Structure formats: C-alpha cells, structure tokens
C-alpha cells in the first residue's frame, strides 16, 4: 500500500518528524515500511520559464524560435509544439538535464541550422501525464524561475507499506494517520463533510432492495445530478499519480481518492443506465455471463453476489462494476454506492473469478461497516465540488441486520501473564483510546473495551493485548533470559540423520539437496506409483519423487558439463508414492525418508604415489556395509542379480538385515545414463532410512581380548569360476572350528590359460583364548580346509603358507 506523505498531512500533523522517523515509527508498530520513494526527484532543475518572444524558424515552417527566460537568463530555444505562444509560462529544461520520459541527457543542438539552448517540455516528457500534443502550459500566476516541483506541488514522499492481512483498517491514508496518532499520542482529524442538497429527495423516485442480507448487510446510496465529467484538478491528479494510480476523469478519480482516503471502496453508476430507478442486491444465476468494465466477459455462479436493476445485472458486488452502467464522458447523473459486503462472500467471488481488485482486496479483509454512509457522502461532496453536481436530498441506507459491536474484557493479570511485564492500566486505556476503542474501567484492574468497527480482526482479549503490546512497543518489553525448563524425562528423538551425514561425509562423500518435485519422465525410475501435483508450476516440476536416484543422476549429468567426472554424492530426503489410484487421505499414500549414494569416476583425488581407484559396485558395497556397521545394524546380507533386463540398471544387489529388505545397490544401465548425457559408469545405492531408523540396533558390548598371538596363513587355489566367494567362505568356516577367527580375500585372478577357473587367495587368521597356537595345530586345520575344498569344489591348491 502506497501512502503519500503530502496526502497524509491532511489528517495529522507530522511536520516535526523526518521521513525516516515516520518510517521507523510505522515499522516498529507493525506497518512495515518496505521502501521510501521520493517523488519529483527526477524533476530537480526543471523551472518555470516565460516565453519572452516567438518567431518563426527561418528554415522550417513547423518550428518556432523562442526566447525563454528562466528568471535569471534568456535562452534561445527551437520549439516544435503547435501551442507555444509568447507570454506563456512553461516548463523550461536547460541543457544538461535528464529528460524523465526518455532518460536521456539534453544536449545543445543545432536544429535546421539554428542553435537550441534548451527545451520547452510537454507533460509526457516530464512523466506527468500522457499529453504530448503540445507543451505543458502553466498558469499565469506561476513564478518564473521557481522549480517546477514547487510550482506544481509535485514534491512528495511515498511510503510503500506492507500491510498484513489482519489490518484492513490501515489500508488508507486516514487509517495510517490513526495509527500514527496512537503511536505519537496525538490527535488526528477526518474531513468535515458538508454540502448543499437540492429540494428533490432521493427517496422520491429511487429505492434499494437487499435480497441476500447475509452477504450484503448494509447498502447506502446517494444521487448527484448534472455532473460535468472532466479532468480532475491538479492536486487530485498529483495525489493519485503519486500513489501509482492513473487519473482518468473527475468522477472515477474521486471514488479512487476516497477509497485511498478512507479504505472504503465506492462504486459509481451512470444513473441513466440503471433502469427502473431501483437497485437490487441478489445472487447471480448459475453460469450467467456478465461483462465487467474492463471489457471482459465473466461467467458467474449462483454464489456470486450481484448489484442489479430490475432488468439486468449492473455490477459484481465488491469486485468490479459492469460495462453496461459505467461512468463515461456522457454521464450526467451518478448513483453513489457505499456498501458493506460479507468478507467471505467477496473472497469466494474474487477467487472464483480469479479477479482481485482494490475493492475486493479491502472488502474481503473487512471494511468499516459504520462508515459506509459517511464515505458515500464524502464522495457526493467531492462530486458536487469538483464536477459541479447537485446532490439530491437525503440518502438511502438499507441496513437490515445490524452488525453488533464487539466488547472485550481485558485483565491486567493476563497482560502480564502473556507479555511478562506489567503495563499500567492507565497506559493501556490511553493506548486503546487512541486506537479508537471505547474503554470502561472495571473495579480492580480490569477493563472493558468496545472494539472500533474498523478493526474486524479484534474479537478476543489476546487481540487487544497485542494492540497494547505493539503500541507500548515491543522494544520496551524487557528481555528475560531465563530458561525455565521442566525436565520431563521424555526420550530425546535420536539424531540419526545428523550421525548419518557425519558418517557419509567422513567417507568423503558430498551431500546434495535436490528438489522433491520432478518431471514425470524422472519418477518412472522406480516401480512406485508417483503422486501428481494438482497445480504444478510447470511440467518440469509436476510429480513428487519416488526415489532419490533420478535427482542424483541429474546432479551427475549437470556436473559432467563442467568436466567434473569424479563424484561421490549422497542425499537424505523424503520420497512419496501412492498406494491407491485416487488419493484422498493419509492412508492412500506413503512418505518415507531415504538415503541415496552415487559414485562415478575415481574414488580418491589424483596423487603422486598411488594409482586412482575407480568407483565400482564393490567399493559401493563396502561403503554401504561399513555405514550399516557404524550405525550398529546387525546381520547384513546381500542378494545379487546380474545382467538384468531393465531399462534403468543392469546389476542390483539387494541389502537385508536379518530378513528385512532395506535397500539396493545398482549399476545404472548404459541407456539410462546416455539419456541423461552421462558417458561413464555410475553406481548408486538407495536405502530406506525410515525403516533403518525403526530397526533394533546392536548394543555395543565389550568382547574379551585374547592374551595370545594370532597366526596367519595364506591359501591360494584355482577353483571353478561358477563357485561364488560366498560359498567358499561359508565352506571354509564350516570345515574349521572356532579358532578360525577371520577370512580375508586378498587376491582374485583370471587368465585364458585357467580355462573357466579363477585363482583366489585368502588369508586365514587363527587365535586361541587359552594358549599360543603351535604350527602343528594350525597345519592340521589348514589341511582339513584344503581337503574339504578339494573334495567339495575340486580346487587345485597353488600355495599354502
């Protein structure tokens, strides 16, 4: 909301305050000043000039040669305007000034061979209006040499104030004046409404009938005859253009002016176009069509409240008038409407039509229902003054269901309980009175206050306490740094997310954050049924992710564009999927938190001592296993699938703890990666973090240490390629006893000469709690293992030492 300080000064004396002080007072009481705009800044240097003489340009018929005096000197100016005459007071721009409409610097120029030392400006060139048919001619009283911003009273400061939805009372200049009055504890004044009426009474030949009293509790009307529709006076045009409105004609400008003066929207009809001398307020018919004054055809529904005459609809109540009854230059008689509409009804209509106007914005927040007649009268007064109208005697005020005043009891004890400070009862009542409350003191320390009708947001004690607090000043509430907490013995929710991030970052992975919203193509990665956004921003962001992997793939692809090929990434985030075709409530879909990891390129950064390790499925597997170990998940097992016929991945390794599936590792397929412009291998893992969090964790326990040294033996052998490492490992453990503590694979080798066999080398670790193991004891066990392997798998031992 834009507030002009020139305009504001009509209602409150703020002459002793600087602009910054005003802005700070408003901001600190809840009307946040978002910006301060100095109007007329760009017209500095433009002055009133006088055309001393005018001759024809010797070389051009349409140009004239003028001598212009700026109060101290005379300049020769070539002027092309048809309306320039000797003796006129005009706006003179000297060479060097920047012309507001073009932003260009005025230079000394030769026009058709004659030097021009400045410019006589048009309204448009100055940015003051649209008129460019000729130069702007000032009144004869204008003082030559006076800056144009002073001469035309253009200088103004406009505050852009962010008004929160609870403060419709502040959506006007009087509203802001009232607010300042409470802050400064100073009087404000509202315009005196005083006008002459003609003998004929409005009621003689005109009536209003409200059929929907719920949505239109009050409707007032006045009629003004014989108006002259014309341009508004300069002061009115200045006010409107300073706050960003384009002046149109006096009648329309007056209703805009009063809207911004009081915050009450006013509509005016051309009385000739309203048939039957009657206005009826009722609902529209279903699917009825109506052309609003912006020329657009709107389709209404039966909930839409309409202003009608006996023959037709003439306005959408509280939102926008109709084309069929709007004020035009031909208008003679005007009907002024001042109404109070039900905020919810106006909001529904505005939402339904997708049409928000200055009027609907205020009606849906709630206007002052006590002020409708006053404001309608204010409009009548101004039309009489500025459009020479004649006001019919009396007024219509249909107010079938009176809106009751709200009374609230405020307890000093409650003020203290909420705010933590004591505020004197006299200060409370002073603040409230300045805000327009009527305050009655009760016995004891309590107050009863009648809430002003322009504050629909205040209905409860707590609302009044807020008023007291903000005018008293939040700054004046002392900081209380006590932390008074009650220990409840409640379980502190574990920080497993934070731990996981620390573990994975510790492994050298970088955390990424991707959007939950993605396009349909991307969510197809998983088999889950994706959830669609009903009102997406774009097709690129139309579905909720069912997996974190597509986001990681996108991240890898984006980084490849910068030749960043070595990536180790992880993300923790929520994924959602539907469980039914139609989603209506929480039972129809699932939301769970996942962890995903992606590896591509080299694992370690380049160094001079070692060759880089390439990311592969085994590195990923080890990483996942170590992570699960670190968060104390027990009994991890893997089930693997090679050569999958899948569009997205060729290898899947499923991860289980006990028999619970907790996630998978994948080698992404070439075709999926190519579609994403990735030419390198990518390995990803996705784990169900919600499930992992819910599983019982292993309790860390101390295991007794042996006091005797361990013995290590290496065993290498050739074995049929079809036998898996897992089978071999299990067999070795089975064929030994508990002295065998550990098996570590340290080599795998294949070549053509091995004929479908592979060479494996394992290190076996033996240890006893009771004694130092002798060579013979270990040899015996190795021999047994060798025998079993030979018998079961037909291995060929290459070395045992």
């Amino acid at each position, binding site marked *: 909301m834009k507030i002009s300080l020139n305009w504001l000064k009509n209602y409150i004396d703020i002459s002793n305050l600087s602009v910054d002080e005003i802005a700070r007072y408003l901001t600190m009481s809840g009307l946040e000043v978002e910006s301060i705009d100095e109007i007329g800044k760009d017209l500095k240097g433009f002055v009133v000039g006088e055309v001393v003489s005018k001759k024809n340009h010797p070389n051009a018929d349409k140009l004239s040669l003028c001598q212009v005096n700026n109060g101290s000197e005379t300049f020769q100016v070539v002027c092309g305007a048809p309306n320039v005459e000797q003796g006129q007071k005009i706006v003179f721009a000297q060479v060097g000034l920047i012309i507001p409409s073009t932003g260009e610097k005025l230079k000394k120029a030769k026009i058709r061979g004659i030097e021009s030392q400045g410019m006589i400006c048009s309204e448009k060139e100055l940015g003051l209006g649209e008129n460019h048919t000729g130069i702007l001619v000032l009144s004869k009283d204008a003082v030559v040499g006076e800056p144009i911003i002073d001469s035309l009273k253009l200088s103004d400061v406009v505050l852009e104030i962010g008004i929160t939805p*609870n*403060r419709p009372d502040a959506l006007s200049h009087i509203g802001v004046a009232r607010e300042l009055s409470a802050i400064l504890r100073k009087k404000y004044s509202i315009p005196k409404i005083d006008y002459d009426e003609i003998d004929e009474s409005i009621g003689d030949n005109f009536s209003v009938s409200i059929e929907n009293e719920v949505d239109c509790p009050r409707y007032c009307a006045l009629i003004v005859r014989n108006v002259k529709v014309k341009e508004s006076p300069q002061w009115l045009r200045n006010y409107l253009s300073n706050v960003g409105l384009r002046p149109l004609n006096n009648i329309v400008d007056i209703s805009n002016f009063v809207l911004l003066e009081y915050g009450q929207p006013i509509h005016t009809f051309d009385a000739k176009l309203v048939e039957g001398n009657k206005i009826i307020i009722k609902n529209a018919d279903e699917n009825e069509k109506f052309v609003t004054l912006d020329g657009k055809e709107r389709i209404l529904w039966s909930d839409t409240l309409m202003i009608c005459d006996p023959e037709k609809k003439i306005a959408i109540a509280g939102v926008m008038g109709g084309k069929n009854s709007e004020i035009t230059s031909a208008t003679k008689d005007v009907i002024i409407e001042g109404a109070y509409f039900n905020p919810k009804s106006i909001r529904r209509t505005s939402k339904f039509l997708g049409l928000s106007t200055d009027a609907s914005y205020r009606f849906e927040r709630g206007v002052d229902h006590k002020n409708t007649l006053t404001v309608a009268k204010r409009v009548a007064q101004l039309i009489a003054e500025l459009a020479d109208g004649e006001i019919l005697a009396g007024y219509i005020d249909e107010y079938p269901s009176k809106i009751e005043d709200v009374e609230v009891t405020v307890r000093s004890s409650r003020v203290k309980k909420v705010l933590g400070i004591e505020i004197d009862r006299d200060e409370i009542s002073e603040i409230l009175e300045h805000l327009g409350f009527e305050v009655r003191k009760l016995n004891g320390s309590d107050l009863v206050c009648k809430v002003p009708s322009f504050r629909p947001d205040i209905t409860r004690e707590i609302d009044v306490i807020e008023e007291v607090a903000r005018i008293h000043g939040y700054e004046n509430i002392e900081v209380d*740094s006590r932390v008074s907490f009650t220990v409840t013995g409640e379980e502190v929710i574990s920080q497993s997310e934070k731990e996981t991030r620390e573990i994975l970052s510790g492994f050298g992975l*970088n955390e990424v*954050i991707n959007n939950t919203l993605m396009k349909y193509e991307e969510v197809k990665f998983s088999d889950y049924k994706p959830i669609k956004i009903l*009102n997406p921003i774009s097709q690129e962001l139309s579905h909720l992710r069912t997996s974190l992997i597509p986001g990681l793939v996108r991240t890898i692809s984006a980084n490849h564009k*910068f030749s960043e090929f070595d990536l180790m990434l992880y993300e923790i985030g929520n994924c959602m999927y539907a469980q039914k075709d139609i989603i209506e409530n929480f039972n129809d879909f699932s939301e769970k938190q996942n962890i995903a990891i992606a590896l591509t390129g080299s694992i370690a950064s380049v160094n001079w001592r070692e060759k880089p390790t390439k990311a592969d499925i085994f590195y990923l597997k080890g990483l996942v296993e170590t992570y699960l170990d670190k968060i104390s998940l027990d009994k991890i097992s893997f089930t693997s699938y090679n050569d999958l016929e899948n569009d997205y991945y060729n290898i899947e390794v499923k991860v289980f703890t006990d028999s619970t599936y907790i996630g998978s590792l994948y080698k992404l397929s070439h075709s999926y990666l190519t579609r994403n412009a990735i030419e390198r291998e990518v390995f990803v893992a996705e784990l169900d973090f919600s499930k992992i969090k819910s599983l019982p964790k292993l309790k860390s326990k101390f295991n007794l240490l042996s006091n005797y040294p361990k013995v290590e033996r290496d065993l290498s052998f050739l074995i049929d390629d079809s036998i898996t490492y897992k089978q071999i490992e299990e067999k070795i453990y089975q064929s030994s006893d508990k002295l065998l503590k550990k098996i570590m694979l340290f080599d795998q080798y294949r070549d053509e000469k091995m004929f479908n066999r592979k060479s494996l080398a394992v290190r076996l670790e033996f240890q006893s709690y009771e004694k130092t193991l002798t060579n013979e004891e270990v040899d015996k066990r190795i021999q047994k293992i060798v025998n079993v392997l030979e018998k079961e798998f037909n291995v060929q031992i290459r070395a045992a030492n």
Partner: protein
Amino acid sequence: MSKVKSLQETENFRIKYLGRKGSISSLFELISQVPKESKAEFGRELNLLKKEIEENYQNLLEKFPKTKIQAKTEDLTLPGIKPNIGTKHIVTQTLDEIIEIFRGFGFNIAEGPEVESDYYNFSALNFPEDHPARDMQDTFFIAKDLLLRTHTSPVQIRYMEKHKPPVRIIAPGRVFRNEAVSARSHCIFHQVEGLYVDANVTFAELKGTLFNFAKLFYGEDVKIRFRPSFFPFTEPSAEMDVTCILCNGRGCRVCKYSGWLEVLGCGMVDPNVFKSVDYDVEEYTGYAFGIGIERIAMLKYGIDDIRILFENDIRFLRQFIQI
C-alpha cells in the same frame, strides 16, 4: 661390450660413447670437414652407428637391472597424500548449527511429514477458510485436503496432540511454496520451527531466548529488534531483525539501507491453536518461532541466488569443508 660388468660400468660406457663429449658427438663435429658430396653418406652411417650403440646400451641396462633406491634425503616438499574429505550441504550445516544451539536451551527435536493435510497445515493453525491469510502462502495440492506443507508449523499441532505441556521442541524440515523459481525465491526451502508451552511462558522470555540464539549464532555484538507482524497462529506476532551482518548496521544494498535484516517470525501461541489440541487456554501460554534456513545461510556465506543451493555443483559443495 664384453668388458662391461656392472651398472656403474654401463654408465661409463654411456658417457664414453653417447655422452655430451663422447665419441659419437666428436664424430658429428667432424661433419663440417667432410666434402659436400659425401656429407649425406657420412651422416647416414654415423646415425646407424649411433643407433647401434644405443641399442647396445639398452641391452646392457637390461642385463644389470636397476634396484629401487631411497633418496639420500627425502624431498619433503612433495605434496602430502590427503584423505578424501566429504561435505555436508550448507543448508544442513546451518540447520545443525541452529539445532545445536536450541538443544543447549533444552529443546527436543520433533518431525512431521512433508505431505500434510489442510487441517494440520492451515485450519488447526487458525487459518480460517475463506480468509486472506491463506494467500500468504501459495500452496501445492495433491488432493482436495492434502498438500505439501507450506511451513513446519504443522509439527506443532502433531506434537501437542500427543504430548501434554510442558512442551519444548524444535522441528527442522523441508517446506514448499507454489512460486516460480527465481534468484530470490524457490519452490522448496527449509525451516526450523520452535515451540515452547508451559504454565508461565511470556513474550519477554521469547525475546530472551531468541536474543541469546542470535548472540550464539551471529556473535556477541549482534543487536536485535522485534517488530509487530501477523501470523494466524501467534498473537501477538513479531518479526525479528538482526543488525545487518554485511554492513554492521550502517546500511547497504542487502539490508536495503535499513541496517537491519529480517531473520525470523515468532509470537505467542494463539489461543485458537491451543483449542485445536485441547490445551487449557487459561492455564498455558507459549511461544513459537520459525526460521528460514536458506536465507540465513545465504546471508552468512554471501550467496545472492538461492538456486545455486539446489544445483549441487560439486565445485560449490566442496567449498564448505570447514565445520
């Protein structure tokens, strides 16, 4: 060749024949004295000879294989071998930092879903139907009554439904707004919600807690101010500003020359919220606050385009290895 018996003698062989002042070099120097017509022939022969000696030298080298040796003194200016260091995203780093501070003040952590019902996201938080307050947060819907939460405040309701006062929680999480993505706003961002309810919680305590948070987060010298504002679920409501961290309050482009930066919204829990969860509105009071993480992180690191946070450029992610 047959006289060469060691690696050292191989080296002597190389110096004698192939060295800078060796026989081959001296022969090449003679080329200027050779008559013009024989020059080409002489050169060709000489090159063949050189090639033969080089081959012999290679054979000798293979005959006496090198053994790796330690440098007499190790060159310690060689770069160290660094472990791979991962990073946490700065949004989670900032989140963790804030959580850590409030845990120190005795706050528990609570969580809630990202897909919420209209009830938890709006109605229970005192956003009436058909009220302009609903325009404050543009919402993504997935069904008539299901939406992507627009703030972390629904966690307040979910937690209070299950726990009786005293309640003291913070709820970090992702939120969504149906807004076009630009440098200044994104359709996803993260918040930390705070809630404290007990028999005698006051606005003065709210100021105290947040002032101490600001001091711990921004440093001892920070100044704060509270401005009245409006949120449907708090009354009175406030926004907290801190002195602009870029200009120290002198006024700059980032703080729009006001010297202040808005960092969070807060207020006393509205009695209507307590009614939604069946708390006694006379007995209990409480405060709540919500901190937007991206904004705080962007100010802290001097980032002026929110989109870079979610583009996950590895060069960006790797910048933040400091804890």
